[in-house]
């Protein structure tokens, strides 16, 4: 048993890695550019100020890197030249889409451009290309600053100071279009001297190429941070995501757990009653009622309850939202009562979903068992009917229900999106919807991963409990 549990927990690590890979790729591959979305708030595109802030945003959130594999060490001088002439329409007439793509590529490729730009600057036939290569070289060689708002601010400041000193050397080594021709010659000479000194940084050995291929990517960077439990910062509030999600998790989990417990408490007796009286009128009515509950969408039940009991048509017994009152309540009991008052409607909605499914399973479970031989034996022994039902039938009939626990928890966590939005509870579901609206990739990733972990744990829990309860199952 213990061995099995350990094995399963160890298996969760590769599974979690694969989950993160799938989610990461799906979210990042979905069309729609996060860089543009995040930078759009800064103003119109095409302006240099905006462009710099977009670059900063992209670098800060690693959006300039390729998603899974990095082949940028294999760029050729010809490709880089093509990008420059397209981006600035030097030769030929590219379409606007091509121009945008080329500009984005030049922004994203960063350091990987340096060696080609140096070569282009030195010996390209077209003087315009030489001049542009110089100005792109300035951007490409400049080290970007790290964010000082998250993590260790003092260390980040030191790093930034160092980088700033490095960048300062070549701060004005570029020429405007109208600059005299000597300018180009002078700056080129400066850059070539700089290159002779620094070329080892920008030329890649086979090992460096291989490293970049796998590890200088968005996914690898994300995982490097994840190992330190660093989920990044919110693109919206710049707060660490982990704290935000953990803060939200307590609302969602307490909501889901209460709903699950209530659902089991109500569903099991209902199912057993229904099964024992199988075929009677009470059973028919119960089954029909539960079927109706089962087919009602959560958001409909929630909206109707909210409208009926807290919007004032007809009554205002419950609050319209939130987890607890804004005002502080001195006693523990008082604040618990306050939370219960706030959660009554959402829990009722959430329970109704789980209840219908659970009691249907409970009913089938008990009906299956009641026909078994050992129940007949128990009756033949002269045992009282309640003893037969509770001690013999229910105990065995509940085994399938127990395994459902693992499946129901993630469903409820998923379903919490709707309930939290309808009842305005600041939990994970609502946070997800808000983050989605603000295109906060880090937040969305973190919520998805957290809920995947919950699901994994739920499945493990239900498998183990199955083995604990049913002696016929031997896991080792």
């Amino acid at each position, binding site marked *: 048993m213990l061995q099995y549990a350990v094995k399963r927990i160890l298996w969760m690590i590769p*599974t979690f890695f*694969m*989950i993160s890979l*799938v*989610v990461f790729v*799906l*979210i990042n591959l*979905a*069309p*729609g550019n*996060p860089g543009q979305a995040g930078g759009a708030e800064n103003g119109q595109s095409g302006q240099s100020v905006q462009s710099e802030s977009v670059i900063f945003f992209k670098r800060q959130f690693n959006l300039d890197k390729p998603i899974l594999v990095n082949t940028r060490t294999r760029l050729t001088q010809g490709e880089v030249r093509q990008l420059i002439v397209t981006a600035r329409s030097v030769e030929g007439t590219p379409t606007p889409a091509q121009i945008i793509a080329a500009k984005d590529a030049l922004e994203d490729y960063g350091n990987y451009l340096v060696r080609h730009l140096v070569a282009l600057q030195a010996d390209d036939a077209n003087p315009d290309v030489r001049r542009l290569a110089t100005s792109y070289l300035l951007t490409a060689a400049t080290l970007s600053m790290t964010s000082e708002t998250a993590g260790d601010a003092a260390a980040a400041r030191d790093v930034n100071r160092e980088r700033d000193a490095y960048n300062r050397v070549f701060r004005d080594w570029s020429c405007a279009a109208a600059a005299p021709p000597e300018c180009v010659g002078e700056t080129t000479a400066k850059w070539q001297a700089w290159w002779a000194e620094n070329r080892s940084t920008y030329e890649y050995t086979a090992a460096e190429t291989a490293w970049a291929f796998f590890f200088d990517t968005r996914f690898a960077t994300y995982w490097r941070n994840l190992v330190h439990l660093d989920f990044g910062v919110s693109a919206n509030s710049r707060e660490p995501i982990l704290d935000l999600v953990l803060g939200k998790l307590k609302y969602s989990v307490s909501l889901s757990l209460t709903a699950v417990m209530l659902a089991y408490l109500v569903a099991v007796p209902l199912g057993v009653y229904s099964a024992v009286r199988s075929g009677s009128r009470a059973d028919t009515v119960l089954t029909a009622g539960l*079927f*109706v509950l*089962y*087919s*009602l*969408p*959560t*958001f*409909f039940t929630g*909206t*109707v309850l*909210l*409208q009926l009991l807290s*919007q004032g*048509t007809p009554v205002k017994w419950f609050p319209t939202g939130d987890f607890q009152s804004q005002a502080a309540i001195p006693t523990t009991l008082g604040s618990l009562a306050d939370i219960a008052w706030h959660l009554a409607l959402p829990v009722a909605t959430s329970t109704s979903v789980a209840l219908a499914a659970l009691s249907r399973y409970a009913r089938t479970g008990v009906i299956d068992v009641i026909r078994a031989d050992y129940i007949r034996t128990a009756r033949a022994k002269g045992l009282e009917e309640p003893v037969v039902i509770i001690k013999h039938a229910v105990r065995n009939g509940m085994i399938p229900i127990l395994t459902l626990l693992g499946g129901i928890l*993630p*469903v409820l*966590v*998923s*379903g919490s*999106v*709707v309930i939290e*939005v*309808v009842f305005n509870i600041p939990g994970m579901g609502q946070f*997800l*919807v808000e983050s*989605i*609206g603000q*295109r906060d990739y880090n937040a*969305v990733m973190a*919520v*998805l991963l957290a*809920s*995947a972990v*919950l*699901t*994994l744990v739920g*499945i493990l829990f239900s498998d183990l409990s199955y083995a604990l309860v049913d002696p016929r199952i031997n896991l080792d």
Partner: protein
Amino acid sequence: MTDASSAQPLPQRLPERPPAAAEDPSWLQIVWGQFKKRKIPYYSMWGVFGLFLIAVYAPVFISNKPFVWNGGDGLEFPWLTTLFNRNTYENAIDIFFNSLLLPGTLLIVPVAVVWRRTAGRPRRARIAARQRAMLGAFGAWAVALVALLAFPLQAPTPVYPEVEATLEAAGTPVTAVYAPVPYSYRGTDISKAMEGPSTEHLLGTDGAGSDVFARMVFGTRVSLTVGIFAVLLYITVGTVVGAVAGFFGGRLDTLLMRIVEVVICIPSLFLVLSVAAFIPERSIFHIMLIIAAVAWTGPARLVRAEFLRLRELDFVAAARASGFGKASIIFEEILPNALGPVLVSATFGVASAILVESTMSFLGLGDISVPSWGQILATGRQTSSWTLILAPGFAIFLTVSLLNLLGEGVRDALDPKLRS
């Protein structure tokens, strides 16, 4: 009883045996007979069929284009001529259902004729003739649909009620015959936003002044399309994956099932919402794709389990011994026997796909260009309007419960243990 009396009836019974010409019931006929015995699923099936008819014939009852129009320049038939016009019916879903409405309905006639004529023929010939007729009709309809989608009509169309008012104000007599509900689900009229139910607008109007009844009825089209197509898509993918995993087993099976486990562990609604949100200008087809992308694991597991069971049976060994190829053993021998559970899960799947779509549009992450029940309910919640909450809620509830009841019926009918 003596020996003589017990031996006597035997020869008399013989002629009572069914004549050789009578047909043994096919598997489908057995299942159908079993299905018909339970009344609730049977009526639910007709209910679902009714919803489908409502979806197909919606424009007959609801259209702001008059059937017949005479504005002084002779008779016109705008309803008919705009049925495939992309300016009137912008969405591919509408073009699809309209193609069922017009060419589809017309094609029923030749099929019905063939059906009737072949009724007396022997089974094999009858089935062959009917299959030919159905295939021909389906082919003709498919050609029409592809043509309509590939070469859209886009002539601008006037807003007839407004033109009528202008013409009548100018003193020109106008003849116009409208559908019972003369509104389009896309038409907006801000001056009439958020009105309650009246004889003019049966279910009132929404925030943009559109007729809610029209949006509800056309929402049937959206819900059914999402449900059925998403399920078809993921059932196909899941069945192929499950069949391959179950048939070949070994490393391939392990690999495929690992992938299935990974997908199962991601809470589907979260994933669906996140992916949907990052697609710019998402359409209803994106939503079907996303639903399919997270739901294919169910049928994959079902089909795999069936294949693991079936591949050990004698008929598969016989097929192997006869030298059948792997593909034909998988798809022609085993698959038809493995489809029962898939059919059941598909029926429930349609219901849950409809729920997912309405949840997405309720949260504002659906396709805003099509009328959706979830979207109406969201408006109802924001404006606290009972009509806008109850009407779509009831529609979703009705559709979902009809489909669930139907699914239960199919499950029971396919279960040999419940056969009586």
